[in-house]
């Protein structure tokens, strides 16, 4: 695993270890809640599982965003989106920032960044409102957090399924 702390060029320190711990705690708590619901309902139909998995996914993302804190753009945007989604499930829409050609024919060198930048914007929460350079920074941080998230969830799944 990577070093526990990474520092981007801009000085954003990614402390994965503490991030991991915080995330694990929050996620486990929310997981417990969801499990309680499952037990009470006691239905294991596919739909229920589907819903539950979505809830778990949202819990994972929100706990990760909270663990990170408000210092990153993507965490704030993620929390905002999740909150809105809860109340308005279908009102959250994404606007296309730049029309991207379906066939990626690079018109010029700059278009490389533009095209992929738009793609990244869709992937990274809150990416729409950031300039390209910030987007790259946020992507780096987001990737490390996703990594820790996956690892924690994997470990939990391993433990639970033993």
């Amino acid at each position, binding site marked *: *695993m990577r070093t526990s702390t*990474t520092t*981007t*060029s801009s000085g954003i320190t990614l402390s994965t270890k503490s991030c*991991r*711990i915080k995330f*694990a*705690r929050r996620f*486990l*708590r929310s*997981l*417990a809640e*969801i*499990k309680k619901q*499952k*037990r009470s309902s006691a239905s*294991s139909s*596919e*739909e229920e*599982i*589907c819903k*539950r*998995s*979505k*809830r*778990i*996914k949202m819990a*994972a*993302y929100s706990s990760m965003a909270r663990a990170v804190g408000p210092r990153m753009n993507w965490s704030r945007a993620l929390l905002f989106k999740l909150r809105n989604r809860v109340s308005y499930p279908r009102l959250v829409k994404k606007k296309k920032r730049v029309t991207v050609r379906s066939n990626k024919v690079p018109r010029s060198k700059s278009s*490389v*960044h533009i095209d*992929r*930048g738009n*793609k*990244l914007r869709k*992937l990274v929460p809150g990416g729409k409102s950031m300039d*390209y*350079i910030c987007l*790259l*920074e946020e*992507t*780096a941080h*987001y*990737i490390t957090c*996703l*990594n820790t*998230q*996956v*690892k*924690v*969830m*994997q*470990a*939990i*799944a*391993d*433990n*639970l*399924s*033993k």
Partner: protein
Amino acid sequence: MDMSEKDKFELENRNEEPMNYSPSMTYGFGGSNLTNASMDLVPTGNSMADSKEDLIGSSSQPSASMVESFSPALWDHPTNAQNMGFCDINGQTSASTSNTMGIRKGIPASLRSGIDRPLDMCWNPPNSMLKGGIFLPNGPAGMLPQSLSQFPADSGFIERAARFSCFNGGNFSDMMNPFVVPESMSLYSKGGGMMQWAVAGQGTKAMSSNELNQVGDASNEVSLPIDHGATDGSPLKNEKKSESLVKSHDEAKNAMDGSGNESDEADFSGGAEEPSMMEDTGVGPSSKGSKKRKRSGQANELDQTKIAAHQSVESTKDDTEMVQKGASTTNKTTGRLVKQGSQTSDPPKEEYIHVRARRGQATNSHSLAERVRREKISERMKFLQDLVPGCSKVTGKAVMLDEIINYVQSLQRQVEFLSMKLATVNPRLDLNIESLLEKDILQSRVGPSSSMGFSPDMHIAYPPLHPSQSGLIQAGLPGMGSSSDLLRRAMGSQMAPMTGGFKEPSQLSNVWEDELQNVFQMSYGTGTPSNSQDVDGSGTPGHMKVEL
């Protein structure tokens, strides 16, 4: 680095600047004007030599080197600065040279780095050490202390400083003595010895750079060349000598640039000068002068230190650029400097990133800004390259970006899949598991198997992972059996969104599961049971690939 400190220093320096440097200093570097300069320098040379000696004696420490670099600067000024009334520093050579780097008594306690503290201590005594009109003005002394305080606790810097101190094989006293040292002093005589250090430059670029910086040329900015390893100073420096004094700093810097690493130190020394220069240029105490410099491995740290130390406006238009942000005290845009081809693109303003055009490149502000942007982007791309596995071999931004996008997508899919898995897992144990899990998670996490997770979407884009994973892949066959239900359900539920219904997820999932099992059996044999859930279907990507 401490920007606030720098600011403080800047202010201090500003106050003192008018005294320190007079634009009238004209050191003929061309080699033909030695006499004048030498004459001026001679009287101070002795005292300087002495003090330098003392300083140098203690040069074992990096701080010492810095002091050394600075002290000459101060001494140089006396030629002009005799009238400045610096007489603060009395030529009391402190015996204890080991730590007597402190040029300035009043060095702010803000020096925080490890180097700074010893420097702080060291600096004080040297004040008294300086003799003969070389005065580190305590009051006006902003220059040195400022730069000193801003020395970064950079190990690279320390090395350079040490190297610097070891300049000339430790026979520093000779160098110091203007009369004795032929090479080094020649420059010294020419231009206050800045150049000569550079010329002498035997690898102690810092020295030269310091010298250069210290030459009180207000208009000159201290260039922070970060050409590490370019230690070919002398020819380059010789060239520089020919330029006018106005450009002398530039030249010195160029020379220093050639020398590379030491340039960092030069920066600091330059910083000392700069306050005075800043005054001359009339630049307000705004922090400026973030010079744009090339980023080297140590650039970041150095940059910061340079920003702190770097108060002079001028920077030679070297090929190296350093990017410095923040409250640099350097007064960058002294219009009066006429440098070859480099013009500061931004007017001196606070909190601007000042960029200096590289030699031989367009000085259009747009192109400069673009270059800054491009450098930033490439920097971040490098960082991302480290994060994304398997991207070290990839060259080119387009492919890199594609890889990054794919990686983010795959991670998100993994999260989704794992959430499904967790949803289907029966909570056999109670949630006291939390504590157990936490322990587990915190400890065992590093397992590569866990990192892979089970991703139904086999990302072929990450083949490098697969070979490494194969050994670890816990084929999970033992676990597979028990979790077949889970797997089926997970696959089914995951397939459901794709198929838009539950028509055939079970069938599909069964098929998948069988295939998976086969695959794993074939590829991995019996993996360790611990990571039963880790199934990396890299063996047969074709089977595993799920188009989401």
